[in-house]
């Protein structure tokens, strides 16, 4: 037990150590986190009226970010799956970093949902036993199960591995691998259920199609690895941890395939909806072309399409894909493209027009921007600490020593490199 507490302390100490660049980064994030605190404070004091939402558009920026981040969380599987199922050696070495990313992403998801709730003070109403958990009827309860389950699996899997490494003892393979394999399947479930959450409502025809889950998964497995590649490149740049080129090649291949399928599904959706152009396609038409002058979403949609298609074409070229100087920029483009397409580009035309046919345009309020920006900052904050801690353990800098004068070796080296 004492050893476990020591692990916890050493892990955090390693996570919170770094040079001037590190502290500047954390300070910047802290600033945005304070904005989040203020935004939440105002929203809880005055109610959701401080957002841009209304009865016509009652789901907006918060849920858009939620849906997107669930995908990023699920995408940790793109590191875990090749590592364990295909025994990809290079990914296997850094698999725990993928799990850390998943933890940070799920934390963000939970914060987005809380921000979306009109009565966060009543959150306990949804807890089983003390509240009422409308399971299996309500899709939201399924989402609660899969998300918290996924968070738990990643915490257990990731930290069990790190702890064993820290204590320098043998992994219990049966236990560890079963956690890993369950987590792989579970990752698919979180995004599938999130798709079911919104595509099981015939009142919203744009979402009411069975392609939603697979589209969610393919876009997630394009956006997620894009972020992972960027994070891994930063890790390779700023820490002594070696990540081989093959790991990046593997991930960029996953992006190409998934992005290609996602674009194909988007094309199918557009043709299916627009060819007959029934009233049920008005949401999609509003997104693509606007509606009698209400065309805020139009430039966003086409930007997203350009980024995704451009990224796909570039990534198809092996020379470009394998160029690790260009790759992060393509990844950023893909990430932003999918963030638009699957965030606001999915949420707003889904609820516009309303079931009785009213078009209302929605722009997030400043409070919403503060809260969302702050949650992203919290995500990056958590991710930075987790990754730095994990790298410390992986490199062997942070390890258990019996002696009283425990020091975190290599702290200076890392500080120097950062």
């Amino acid at each position, binding site marked *: 037990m004492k050893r476990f507490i020591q692990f916890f302390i050493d892990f955090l100490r390693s996570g919170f150590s770094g040079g001037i660049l590190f502290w500047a980064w954390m300070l910047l994030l802290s600033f945005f986190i304070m904005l989040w605190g203020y935004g939440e404070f105002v929203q809880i004091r005055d*109610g959701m*009226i401080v957002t841009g939402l*209304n009865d016509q558009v*009652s789901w907006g920026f918060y849920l858009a970010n939620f849906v997107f981040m669930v995908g990023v969380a699920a995408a940790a599987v793109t590191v875990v799956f090749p590592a364990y199922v295909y025994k990809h050696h290079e990914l296997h070495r850094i698999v725990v970093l993928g799990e850390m990313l998943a933890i940070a992403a799920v934390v963000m998801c939970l914060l987005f949902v809380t921000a979306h709730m009109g*009565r966060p003070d009543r959150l306990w109403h*949804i807890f089983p036993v003390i509240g009422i958990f409308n399971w299996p009827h309500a899709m939201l309860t399924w989402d609660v199960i899969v998300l918290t389950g996924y968070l738990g699996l990643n915490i257990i899997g990731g930290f069990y591995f790190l702890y064993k490494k820290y204590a320098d003892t043998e992994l219990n393979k049966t236990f560890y691998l079963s956690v890993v394999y369950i987590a792989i399947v579970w990752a698919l479930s979180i995004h599938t259920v999130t798709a079911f959450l919104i595509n099981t409502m015939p009142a919203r025809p744009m979402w009411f199609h069975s392609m939603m889950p697979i589209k969610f998964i393919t876009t997630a497995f394009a956006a997620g690895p894009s972020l992972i590649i960027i994070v891994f490149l930063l890790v390779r740049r700023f820490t002594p941890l070696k990540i081989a080129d093959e790991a990046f090649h593997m991930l960029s291949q996953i992006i190409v395939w998934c992005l290609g399928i996602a674009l194909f599904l988007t094309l199918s959706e557009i043709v299916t909806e627009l060819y007959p152009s029934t009233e049920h396609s008005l949401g999609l038409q509003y997104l693509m072309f606007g509606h009698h002058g209400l065309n805020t979403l139009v430039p966003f949609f086409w930007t997203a399409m350009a980024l995704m298609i451009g990224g796909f074409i570039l990534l198809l070229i092996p020379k470009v894909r394998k160029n690790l100087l260009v790759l992060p920029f393509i990844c950023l483009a893909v990430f932003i493209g999918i963030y638009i397409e699957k965030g606001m580009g999915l949420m707003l035309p889904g609820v516009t027009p309303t*079931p*009785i046919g009213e078009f209302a345009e929605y722009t997030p309020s*400043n409070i919403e921007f503060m809260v969302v920006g702050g949650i992203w900052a919290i995500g990056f904050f958590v991710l930075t600490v987790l990754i730095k801690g994990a790298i410390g353990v992986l490199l062997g800098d942070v390890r258990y020593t019996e002696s009283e004068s425990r020091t975190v070796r290599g702290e200076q080296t890392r500080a120097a490199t950062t």
Partner: protein
Amino acid sequence: MSKQETKVKDANGTSRRDFLRKAGTYTAASLSGAAMLLSNPKPAKATANVSWAEHFQKNYRLMTDDEKKEAVERLEKRYSEEFGKKVKVGSEPAIEGVLLGYALNIQKCIGCRRCVKACVAENNQSRGEKQQIEWIRVLRMEKGQFSAEDRDVHGYPEDYGIQVGGNAYKPAGVVLEGQHYYEPDQVPEKDAFYLPMQCMQCEKPPCVKVCPVRTTYRDPDGIVVIDYNWCIGCRMCIGACPYWARRFNWGEPDLPAEEMNPDTHYLGNRPRMKGVVEKCTFCVQRTRKGRWTGCVEVCPVGARKLGNLLDPESDVRKVLASKKVFRLRADLNTYPKFFYFMD
């Protein structure tokens, strides 16, 4: 009037220019955020005196009779203090052998919206500048979606419009081909008819199915009710409702004490708090005492009929037996108990 509901948020939202101007304020404010969190903000009216016990009470559906009595007394005390008059909070259960149904004669309806007003007065909805909530929407329907005047006189519309649909002839018109922001000099208009909508009290309500905490449920008399004290404000039900019948209290409701109707019901028209969903309950505070709903009572042309679907002699059953009757969005299998008919 009803436009305000959409405009509410416009008045509240800020433009990009405001953002730049306010950015400085926000920065300063967020730095002193910790201090602000500690300082006590001016408490909003209806939530000021909420007792500890009210925060931790059970869901109404699962309360024992004693607990219900306790909860009701607690509320009566709080509301009476708040509104400065004796407020009654009813807890009448559904009457046995009653399944409420509603029938609306679209041939008679003249689109005067007196029902909308009466509903707001009866059911204590939020009103005023900041947030105006109405449970009934009257859609103005063009006959056959063809307005001769538009085509013959105005020509094809060209300039861009605002919010409700820009330059379309029909600001609304996706599923139901009607719009609810009409403001003619007088009603009824020559080339239109009217289709009022409110909660349809579905027998298979999609809103109940998606509620993660079962705060909204179908009572035995067929009314879909909400325990406002249990609602977490996730708005899944608003997403699931195909009739756009549910409303959300975006801010603290604005209910002047002198206009407040003190005869309330726990599941019906008692004052709501911010952050919860509400909707039509067929005036549960009235119907469970054998009275008509507010909208039935006020309708000047007798277009609205309420009755017990289990009683063959009731108005609604007679309508169902003898008139041409239809329901909205029958394809969704929600089985509304709100029928439309023509003579």
